[in-house]
């Protein structure tokens, strides 16, 4: 069925169709309509689940942890400061190996308060042990949320998954989305499955004091799970493709085969870049695009291009020019990095064309600020 709706409502719809048993979330712009819609589904009886209207995001993630540890599928959504306030519990969920799925609607961090798209919020969680997706369309939001549960709950993975997309640009933009039948989704997702659970008939304790050797093993097993995830993500995506007719991969390539320079970007900018590629090609430039869809695990091996132009909407200040993906990919070839679109500054295909042309001249840096 074709549905036309905002990214947030599509996210809520996908979550609903994944049949979580417990949802705990706290409102924050621009995520709010995800939560509102889910509350509505639950109150109208369209989704048979418990909705916990927590009093903060720290509690939202804690409640998901409690529910997941008790053995049910969970969902939450947040953005920006909400995500930051969860930070402690985000680490916790990963170390506890609980397959929680979370939407993060990317929004800049304050002060000053800025409600627009910027990926510093989720990128600042890159070291927490979560699998992280960055998606580019409402359709992909839907498909990725469903995939996320399969991946998170896969016995070789058992890690939480975060699906991020640009605030307003996707969250509040209506686009057409193909929504499959509930039965098809049901048959794609398996019964909830977890690595451990609390059950009074088999009492265990989770999370008491752990000594160094065991701790290092726990961390190593998470590393292995991430390694596995790289494969599982592709397998799940392929199976999804067979069933639903859409798949995306870890990195989505566009005209890269003969490209002189490959633009690397995520999310909305990556979509917009596709238009820029067409413009550049018309100009006779051999431009290509590699859209990074999965940032953790980072699919390093997919980046075998001679020359790359990385556009970052998040920065690690004090790390060269700051671009996070740029810095991570720097070792993979000749890389030009641009930081653009922070705090929701609009980045359109013309800007991207300009960046391309700057890179050709060996330039890189921050795009769109008066650099003195």
């Amino acid at each position, binding site marked *: 069925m*074709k549905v*036309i709706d905002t990214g947030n409502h599509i996210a809520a719809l996908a979550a609903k169709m994944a049949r979580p048993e417990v949802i705990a979330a706290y409102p924050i712009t621009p995520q709010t309509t995800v939560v509102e819609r889910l509350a509505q589904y639950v109150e109208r009886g369209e989704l048979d689940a418990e909705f916990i209207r927590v009093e903060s995001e720290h509690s939202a993630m804690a409640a998901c942890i409690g529910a997941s540890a008790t053995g049910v599928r969970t969902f939450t959504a947040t953005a920006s400061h909400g995500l930051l306030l969860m930070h402690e519990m985000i680490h916790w969920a990963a170390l506890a190996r609980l397959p929680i799925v979370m939407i993060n609607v990317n929004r800049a961090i304050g002060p000053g308060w800025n*409600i*627009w798209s910027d990926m510093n919020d989720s990128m600042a969680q890159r070291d927490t042990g979560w699998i992280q997706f960055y998606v*580019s369309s409402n359709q992909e939001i839907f498909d990725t949320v469903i995939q996320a549960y399969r991946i998170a709950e896969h016995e070789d993975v058992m890690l939480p998954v975060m699906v991020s997309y*640009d*605030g*307003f*640009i*996707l969250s*509040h*933009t*209506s*686009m*057409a989305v193909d929504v499959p039948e509930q039965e098809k989704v049901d048959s794609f997702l398996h019964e909830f499955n977890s690595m451990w659970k609390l059950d009074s008939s088999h009492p265990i304790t989770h999370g008491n004091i752990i000594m160094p050797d065991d701790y290092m093993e726990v961390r190593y097993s998470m590393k292995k799970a991430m390694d596995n995830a790289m494969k599982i993500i592709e397998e799940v995506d392929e199976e999804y493709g067979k069933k639903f007719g859409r798949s995306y991969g870890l990195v989505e390539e566009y005209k890269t085969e003969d490209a002189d320079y490959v633009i690397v970007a995520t999310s*909305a*900018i990556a*979509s*917009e870049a*596709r*238009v820029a590629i067409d413009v550049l090609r018309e100009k006779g430039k051999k431009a290509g695009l590699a859209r990074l869809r999965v940032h953790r695990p980072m699919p390093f091996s997919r980046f075998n291009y001679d020359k790359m132009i990385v556009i970052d909407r998040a920065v690690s200040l004090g790390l060269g020019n700051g671009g996070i993906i740029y810095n991570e990919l720097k070792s993979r070839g000749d890389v030009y990095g641009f930081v653009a679109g922070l705090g*929701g500054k*609009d*980045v*359109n*295909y013309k800007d991207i064309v300009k960046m391309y042309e700057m890179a050709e001249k060996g330039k890189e840096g921050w795009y769109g600020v008066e650099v003195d």
Partner: protein
Amino acid sequence: MLTEIIFYGRGGQGGVTAANILANAALKDGNKGVQAFPFFGAERRGAPVRAFARISDEEIYLRSQITEPDIVVVLDTGIMDVLDVTNGLKKDGLILLNSNKKPEEFGFDFRTATVDATGIAIEQEIVVGGIPVVNTPIVGAVAKFLGISIDSVKEAIMERWPGKAGEKNARAAQLAYEKVIS
């Protein structure tokens, strides 16, 4: 072909709804790419606001804001005192105004159309809290210039408000479709 539209109105006036209904109607008419989105501001009720729509027969990859629209729709001509609605409008672009005046009375250097959406709303008794709802008639009018069938518009309206309310709004759209002048 890609058409980009900006709706100008006030916070609470339903510009985003108009953009949404239009996008839905366009989808029904077989357009593969449709988008509708608000201006991403922090505005409160009453303040002038914008909404956007993109319609294309192909998948749309654009994610940026619209700065050079093909069509500009003005839901409330009062805001023209505050801002220049022709800003960025393409040379061969169209301005559609909610007004009972004739297009030429506005003296724009652009192709201009008018429709008395307020009048139609009052006539069709779609008034909320004393304020006429102009977004459904306006969509009827804009559809005409986009070659979108009025039936699709009405269908889209009925989907949003099933029942009585939808019918009245659909009728208003139909009337506007018929009455718009350019």
